[in-house]
C-alpha cells in the first residue's frame, strides 16, 4: 500500500510517498509562493513520476500544514503538530520531545513512544523567535543562508538579541555591527536567541530525552548546536527531518487506511 503525505506550509510545500507505512519511496519540496494548491499538485505529480506509481497508485493521501484544507484531492487531513510528532518518532524512535521550528511558528511537542502528542505549546502573538527571523538576519547581514551556520560556528562570544520582534531585531543587530562586534558572534547570537525562545516553550511542555529537531532549520548545524546548548541535551536531526510532518501525515494516513480495511473513504468528521 502506498500512502502520500503533503505538508502544505506557508514557506514551502513538502511531500513524501511511503510504502506500507514503513519505507520512504520519495520526498519532494518546493516554495509555496502563496499558492499551496498549485505547489501541492506539482509536488504530488513529480513524486508520482519519480516513484513511478500511477496517480491511482497512491492509495491514500493525507494533508497537513497551514493549507491542509485547501487541497481537495485528499482523503484525510491532520494538524501539522500531530504529523511532525509522528514523523519525528518514525525518524528517531526514541524521540520524546520534538521541536518544530517553522518559518512563522515554533512548537514544542511532548510525544509518547507511539508518536502520539501528549502536550504541546506554540508561539501565538507574533513570529518572534520563529525561523523567518533567520532569513531576515541573513538578508540584512548580506550573508547567504547556507553560509550562516558555518560562519556562526566559529563564534567566540555570541551576542544575544534582546528584541522580541523579528523586525526590530534588525536595528539591534545593526547596532551590534556598528559597535564592531564580530560577525560570527552576531550570527551565533541569532541562533542562540532563537533556541532560547524555543526553550521557553519546551520548558513549559516539559523536556525529556530524546530531543528531535524538525522543520526548516534542520540543515543548520548552528541551530542544532544552539539548541543543544540551551536544552543541555543532544539533539537528533537529519535532512529528512525537514519532511517530518509530511512523513507523519503519510504514516497516519496509512494507519487510517488499515482501520478502514484498505478502502479509502470520504473525509471523517474532523473537517473544515
Amino acid at each position: 500500500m502506498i500512502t502520500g503525505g503533503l505538508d502544505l506550509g506557508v514557506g514551502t510545500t513538502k511531500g513524501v510517498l511511503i510504502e506500507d507505512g514503513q519505507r520512504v519511496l520519495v520526498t519532494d519540496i518546493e516554495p509555496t509562493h502563496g499558492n499551496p494548491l498549485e505547489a501541492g499538485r506539482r509536488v504530488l505529480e513529480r513524486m508520482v513520476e519519480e516513484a513511478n506509481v500511477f496517480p491511482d497508485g497512491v492509495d491514500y493521501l493525507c494533508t497537513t500544514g497551514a493549507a491542509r484544507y485547501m487541497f481537495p484531492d485528499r482523503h484525510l487531513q491532520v494538524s501539522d503538530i500531530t504529523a511532525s510528532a509522528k514523523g519525528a518518532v518514525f525518524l528517531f524512535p526514541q524521540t520524546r520531545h520534538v521541536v518544530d521550528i517553522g518559518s512563522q511558528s515554533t512548537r514544542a511537542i511532548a510525544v509518547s513512544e507511539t508518536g502520539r502528542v501528549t502536550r504541546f505549546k506554540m508561539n501565538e502573538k507574533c513570529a518572534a523567535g520563529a525561523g523567518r527571523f533567520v532569513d531576515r538576519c541573513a538578508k540584512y547581514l548580506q550573508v547567504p543562508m547556507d553560509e550562516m551556520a558555518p560562519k556562526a560556528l566559529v563564534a567566540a562570544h555570541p551576542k544575544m538579541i534582546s528584541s522580541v520582534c523579528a523586525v526590530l531585531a534588525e536595528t539591534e543587530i545593526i547596532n551590534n555591527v556598528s559597535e564592531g562586534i564580530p560577525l560570527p558572534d552576531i550570527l551565533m547570537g541569532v541562533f542562540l536567541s532563537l533556541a532560547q525562545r524555543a526553550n521557553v516553550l519546551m520548558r513549559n511542555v516539559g523536556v525529556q530525552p530524546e530531543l528531535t529537531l524538525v522543520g526548516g532549520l534542520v540543515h543548520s548545524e548552528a541551530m542544532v548546536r544552539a539548541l543543544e546548548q540551551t536544552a543541555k541535551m543532544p539533539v537528533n536531526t537529519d535532512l529528512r527531518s525537514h519532511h517530518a510532518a509530511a512523513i507523519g501525515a503519510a504514516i497516519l494516513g496509512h494507519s487510517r487506511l488499515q482501520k478502514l480495511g484498505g478502502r479509502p473513504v470520504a473525509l471523517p468528521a474532523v473537517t473544515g
Partner: protein
Amino acid sequence: MGGSTDETRFLTTARDRQREMVEEYYRGLSQAGGPKKPVAYMLVGGNLTEIVRSFGFEVVFPEIVALNCAIKHVSLQNILHAESEGYGLDVCGYVKNDLGLQELGGDTPFGRIPPPDLLVCSFSGCYVYVKWWEALAEKFGCPLFMLDVPYLRDATPQGEDIAYIVAQLNEFIALLEKITGRSLDRAELERTLERARRAEEGWVKYLSSGQRRPSPIEAYFEAVFYMFPINVLRGTEAAAEFYTIVNAEVEERVKSGTYPVPEEKFRLVVEGIPPYPSYRTFWDFFRKWGAVSVAATYPKVGGLFDRGFLHDPARPLESIAEYSLGAYVNQSWPLRRKIIEDYVRDFAADAVVIHGIKSCRSFTAGQGDLRDRLIHDLGIPALYIESDHEDPRYFAPAQIKNRMDAFFESLDRRRESVPLPMVTG
C-alpha cells in the same frame, strides 16, 4: 539592598543601620519555622503584622523578598522557573518570583526563606493577592486566613466597612489563639501599636521634608531604601528609633547643604512601583537632569500614614481596620488621582513621572487616564514610561532614556520660553 558607595544618594548612618536591620531580619528568618518560631506569610498592603507578631510569629513578606531578589539580579531565574511551571508572561512578576523561588527551595543571596505555617491574605487593593495566596495554600497545605478589605470608595472609611473588618480581626485572633494555644495579650498589642505609631510619625516627618526647597530627600529612589523598617519591622522599638536617626540625618543634610543632587532643577512627583532590576540605571536617568522626586506614591503602599491612616493604641482593632482600608492601592481611582494632585500642589512639583508596571494591573491599569487628566485637565506636565518591577526583560534602557531625555528637554525649554528664529521656510 543596593550596595551604594555614592554618598550623595543616601543618608550614610541611616543606610548602615538599615543594612544591619535587614541582615538581622533575614538571619532570623533562616532559623525560623516550626512550632517554637512559626512563620506567617503576609502581604505589605494593609498587613496585620502587629497582631501576628504579638502571637510570636516571624513574618515573611514575599513581595519584599521579591524586590530584594530583583535588586540582587536573581529574579529572572525564579521567574523563568515559574514560567516553566505554566505561569504566563502576563502574570505579576512578584508572584512568579515567589512561586519560582519556593519551587527552587527558597534560597536567596540574603538567606533561606522558610516555608509558611500560616498564610494571612490581606485582600487590600490587589486581587492578585488572593490568587497568590491560594497558590501558596495549595503548595504548602497550611491554613489561609482571608481578610476581606472593602475597596475604599469614600475619602473617610464607612462604619459598615470598619465593622466588617473588626469582626474578621476578632475571628482572626480566635484562629491565632487556636493555632498557638495562647490568648491575645491586649496590653502587648497596644504597646506594639504605640511603637508602630511612633515609627509611622517618624516616617511621615521624613517624607514631608520633601516640601522644602531644595528638597533634602529623594522621596522615591532614596525613600524606597528606608521603607524596610516601616513595612517589615513596624511595631518594634528598632523601627521607631530608625526614623529618629533618619530625620536627624536629614537635618544635617540641610545644615551642611548636601542635597540629593548638586542642583535641584526639576521637582517631581513619581507614581508607580520602581523597576527594581534596573533601579540604579533608572535613578541615573533622573539625576543626569537634576530631577528630584519630592513626593511619591509608592512609599505609601505599606500605609497612607501621611493621610491620617495611623495606628492608634487607644483604638487597636478599629485603627488596624482603618489602616487596612487606607492602603494606597485600595484607594478608589478618584481618590488616588486626588492624592497625586495634592502632592503636586503641596510639594510644589514641576511635573509627574508615572512608571507603569507591565505585569501589575492593580497599580497600572488606568494610569493613562491619570496622565491624561494631569496634562489635559490640569496642565501639569506628565511622562508615562513602562517596564516591570521584577522582570529585567521588560526594561529597555535606550527607549526609556530617549523618552526621559525628550521629556526633560521639553520641560527645560518651556521654562525659559525661547523666541523662535525668524523663518522664511
